[in-house]
């Protein structure tokens, strides 16, 4: 017999520690312990067997790894927490005695570390410890960015001080500047919650969520002390990440921050980037609009003169070019620098033409000048446009400082983003010159500046996500917008995708089916005059189809489909019977050659499928029982899904057909 082991001396009982034990061991208060755990990344754990670990019977005890807690004992922050605790004790003692002045002095001295010589503590060392490499930090940036962007948009309260909010905002702006400079923004999505952004930073995809402006309700059931703790850590982290990112592209960190611009809601324009090396340190790179922050009046006057001259030239000499063409065309022509490959001789090889779609997506908007109407979300639009290469963005003065121009009639504007409804023409006539609102002073409600493209904001998002400029007609003001799809959903094989034409996604069998059906319907129409009964049946089956559309459950639909098949067979039989009664030949309908060929093809396909299924069955026999079951399940789900996709595609086919019929 081996040595007897005592209970609770080894194994799980020693590996875990309850929260109370940990707090006692570290000599901290519970809130301080929570803070430390959040900063150091120590999470509650779950032992495999609670009974073996804790002597108490409470089911809700939280456990930690003993080794984690042991390691926390070495933490330099612990000393700071303890100092704070002693200070609290001193203050409360003084207050208890009635020495209010003493208490105030103690507190004052502690709050002025520069005078007492005790430095305030930072979380710098924790950042390195938790993220040993930079890539680790980037991988974990999702949460950090979401939190900071959220707090940057919160109203200041007693729980969330204004200082913290300002700091968050600044860090976020710095980060956005990096994304703009490095063109690393990839996708963005307008959801009902907020705006999602995805960027690619050094090969890592970072996804974060930014709330819409002025929307945050601060609710009571959130522990702001804990959120604040996270924010403190994340602020330190993002600051270091920003430093690294800025230095990686040769910029100085921290960039210059202009408080007065920020007070005037300049947002991105409040920060001006500087080169890192000493030679270029002096010159500030104005990222905003090519405008310097401090303008020399003399230079400005000269520039104004020049611009005026240029504009006069443009207006006077080539007015037709300005007014006559669409902005889009203008752009195309102006930048049509690519050579066209033309066949040397007639009938020669036709070469693939170089196209702009293959261009660098990060320079998508680089040739345009945008103007944002006052009802559009400026912050997000500005960020996205700049990140995709746009240099000149103007907006209504209501939207804040830092725009390229606040003048809506600026002739250099190529695109205007509007999001207001089109006013009815009748109203326009009635009112005529009743100018009571602000816009009508400048321009009539429905009037447009010629030579400019008007689009709704969604155009920007859809263009960015598809990495090509979408056709602006679809997004014209007042037009019914196409659905805004999520760019984060990865399409799977054979799945229905509304953005791709039907021909590219349907399977061979489906296409054949569709053609045969079409041919049959044509035949029906011809034969319709002959027998009314058939027509009635057709109507009935149509109704069934509609029912099917209304149905939602996949399984139900499947059943119905099966029923449909049955019905089809029944129909066939009915026809035969009728033919017998009326004494006609069974196949009254003339099948043309094409349909026949299709039918043959279909038969061949079915045969092939059958063979494949048999092969599969045989192969399945080789598998173990467990694996076979799993395989069957997989097949089952796949079939279910593909059935749904087939249904969707058939629906689309129907719609397309209707559209074609309408057009014809």
């Amino acid at each position, binding site marked *: 017999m081996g040595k007897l082991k005592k209970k609770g001396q080894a194994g799980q009982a020693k590996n875990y520690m309850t929260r109370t034990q940990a707090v006692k061991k570290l000599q901290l208060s519970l809130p301080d312990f929570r803070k430390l755990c959040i900063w150091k990344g120590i999470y509650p754990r779950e032992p495999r067997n609670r009974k073996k670990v804790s002597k108490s019977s409470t089911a809700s005890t939280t456990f930690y790894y003993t*080794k984690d807690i042991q390691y926390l004992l070495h933490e330099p922050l612990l000393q700071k927490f303890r100092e704070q605790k002693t200070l609290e004790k001193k203050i409360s003692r003084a207050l208890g005695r009635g020495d209010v002045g003493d208490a105030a002095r103690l507190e004052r001295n502690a709050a002025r570390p520069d005078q007492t010589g005790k430095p305030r503590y930072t979380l710098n060392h924790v950042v390195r410890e938790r993220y040993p490499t930079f890539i680790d930090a980037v991988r974990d940036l999702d949460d950090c960015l979401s939190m900071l962007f959220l707090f940057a948009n919160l109203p200041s309260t007693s729980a969330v001080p204004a200082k913290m909010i300002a700091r968050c905002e600044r860090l976020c702006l710095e980060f956005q500047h990096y994304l703009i400079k490095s063109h690393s923004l990839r996708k963005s999505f307008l959801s009902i919650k907020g705006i999602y952004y995805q960027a690619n930073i050094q090969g890592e995809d970072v996804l974060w969520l930014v709330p819409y402006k002025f929307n945050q309700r601060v609710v009571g059931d959130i522990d702001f002390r804990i959120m604040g703790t996270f924010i403190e850590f994340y602020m330190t982290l993002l600051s270091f990440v920003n430093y690294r990112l800025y230095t990686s592209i040769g910029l100085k960190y921290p960039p210059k921050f202009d408080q007065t611009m920020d007070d005037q809601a300049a947002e991105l324009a409040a920060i001006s980037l500087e080169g890192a090396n000493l030679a270029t340190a002096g010159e500030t790179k104005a990222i905003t609009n090519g405008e310097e922050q401090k303008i020399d009046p003399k230079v400005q006057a000269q520039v104004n003169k020049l611009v005026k001259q240029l504009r006069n030239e443009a207006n006077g000499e080539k007015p037709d070019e300005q007014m006559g063409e669409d902005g889009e065309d203008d752009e195309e022509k102006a930048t049509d620098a690519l050579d066209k490959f033309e066949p040397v001789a007639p009938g020669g090889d036709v070469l693939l033409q170089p196209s702009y779609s293959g261009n660098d997506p990060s320079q998508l908007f680089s040739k345009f000048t945008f103007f944002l109407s006052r009802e559009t979300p400026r912050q997000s639009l500005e960020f996205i446009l700049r990140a995709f290469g746009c240099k000149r963005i103007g907006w209504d003065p209501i939207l804040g400082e830092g725009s390229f121009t606040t003048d809506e009639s600026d002739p250099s504007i190529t695109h205007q983003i509007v999001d207001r409804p089109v006013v009815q023409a009748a109203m326009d006539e009635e009112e005529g010159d009743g100018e009571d609102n602000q816009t009508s002073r400048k321009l009539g409600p429905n009037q447009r500046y010629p030579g400019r493209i008007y689009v709704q904001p969604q155009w920007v998002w859809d263009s960015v996500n598809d990495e090509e400029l979408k056709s602006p007609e679809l997004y014209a003001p007042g037009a019914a917008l196409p659905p805004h799809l999520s760019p984060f959903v990865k399409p799977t094989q054979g799945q229905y995708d509304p953005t791709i034409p039907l021909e590219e996604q349907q399977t061979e069998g489906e296409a054949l089916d569709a053609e045969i059906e079409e041919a049959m319907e044509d035949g029906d129409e011809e034969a319709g005059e002959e027998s009314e009964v058939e027509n009635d049946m057709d109507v009935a089956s149509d109704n069934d189809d509609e029912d099917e559309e209304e149905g939602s459950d996949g399984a139900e639909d499947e059943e119905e489909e099966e029923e449909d098949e049955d019905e089809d067979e029944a129909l066939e039989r009915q026809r035969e019977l009728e033919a017998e009664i009326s004494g006609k030949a069974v196949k009254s309908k003339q099948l043309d050659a094409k349909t026949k060929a299709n039918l043959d093809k279909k038969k061949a396909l079915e045969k092939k499928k059958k063979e494949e299924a048999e092969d599969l069955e045989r192969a399945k026999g080789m598998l173990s029982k467990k694996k076979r079951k799993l395989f069957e399940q997989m097949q089952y789900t796949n079939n279910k899904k593909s059935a749904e996709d087939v249904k969707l595609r058939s629906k689309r086919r129907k719609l397309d057909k209707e559209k074609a019929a309408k057009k014809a």
Partner: protein
Amino acid sequence: MPVLRSKSGNTDAPSQYKQPSRKGKKAWRKNVDVTEITKGLDELNTQIIATGGVLADKPSTELFALDVKPDTTIAKKFPKHISKGLKADEIIAARSAVPAVSSRKRPAGDKTTDGVLPVKRQRKEYVTAKELRRLKKVADGQHDSTVAVVDATYDVWADPEPAPVEQELENFVPKKEQPKKPKTLHEAPISLSANGKPIPAVAKPKGGASYNPDFTEYQERLIEESEKAVEAEKKRLAELEQERIKLEAALRSAAEAEAAEARADLSEWEDDSAWEGLESGGEELSVKAKKPRRKTQPERNRIKRRKEEERRLKHEAAMKKKAAQEHRIKQIALEVAEKERQMALQKVELDDADEEGDDENLRRRQLGRYRLPEKDLELVLPDELQDSLRLLKPEGNLLKDRYRSMLVRGKMEARRKIPYKKQAKTKITEKWTYKDFTLE
């Protein structure tokens, strides 16, 4: 005078202290005659007032001027009495050469003084009520953040410079060892999702969450959410029903108890009748003793037949039961197979659908004492669906969302706000003393 002289220190010959004795009343401050000193100081003061400085300190060029030529024009210009002026005017016009002390009020903290007048003592100890409240809070542990968040000025991830290799010979003191990080420190937190896979910090949004969604995606989502809502409502109603039934049963039992009590009261009255001699006799109920007798043959046969019949019935019942059980077993087997299939299906679906856990289906056992907060319903209803960004009414609360995400990812345990501290229960009693009663 000596030619060589040290640069510092006293060069005179050593001598006794010139100070007279400090002992005795003569040495007291009030007995020391300082008139000479005060006189000198007064004189200095008058000099300063008259000329703006001490005469002795001034260079002679300032004090004296060489007036070589007489100004002859003045006498001619003015008559003698006017040029001389009145004595009263002269007195009034006399001004001190020292500029006047400005009458501007100085801030309290300014402690500049001329050294003559004492500084007005400030009430430094005064603490405003607001400050006091804050102090009390600080003493209670609710202080502002003590973390200094400053702009990063260096790269944390840069490789540290290699420490200079020290010569081991000279270094007797062993190097301080850094604590080793435990492996457990880098373990991922427990994900609270049902499938145990890590939940992403920001889930990738599905198409149904779009502000201008595709119809099919939106419909799918709407149906899913509405089914959930219906389920929840059904559950709620069922609970209500349960409650109601419980309450009714309680009421009924209470009523029954009351009735029983009332009956008991009544029976007391009935008992009284015994006293009146109306009691029914108990002797009539007594059973007569059975006499032993031999069974006849027909009786035996009857008994035998009955027993046979009973056995048969019993056997039939048993057989029936067995058949039913067999049937049931078959059913159960089918059910189990179906269930297994479903489970496997679910597993497969989960496996191939997402490698990430979702924050909707959570596991049963959660961290901490409190339940996780429910996820907000983030859905725009069909009648509120707009295709314009301007008209969009954002749904959900991001603050709550972030908070819940932290909890669901197992970064910490759920907490609940406790708005009031638990108060000690007070029991109110009336106090009776002998003084409250009076005897008459």
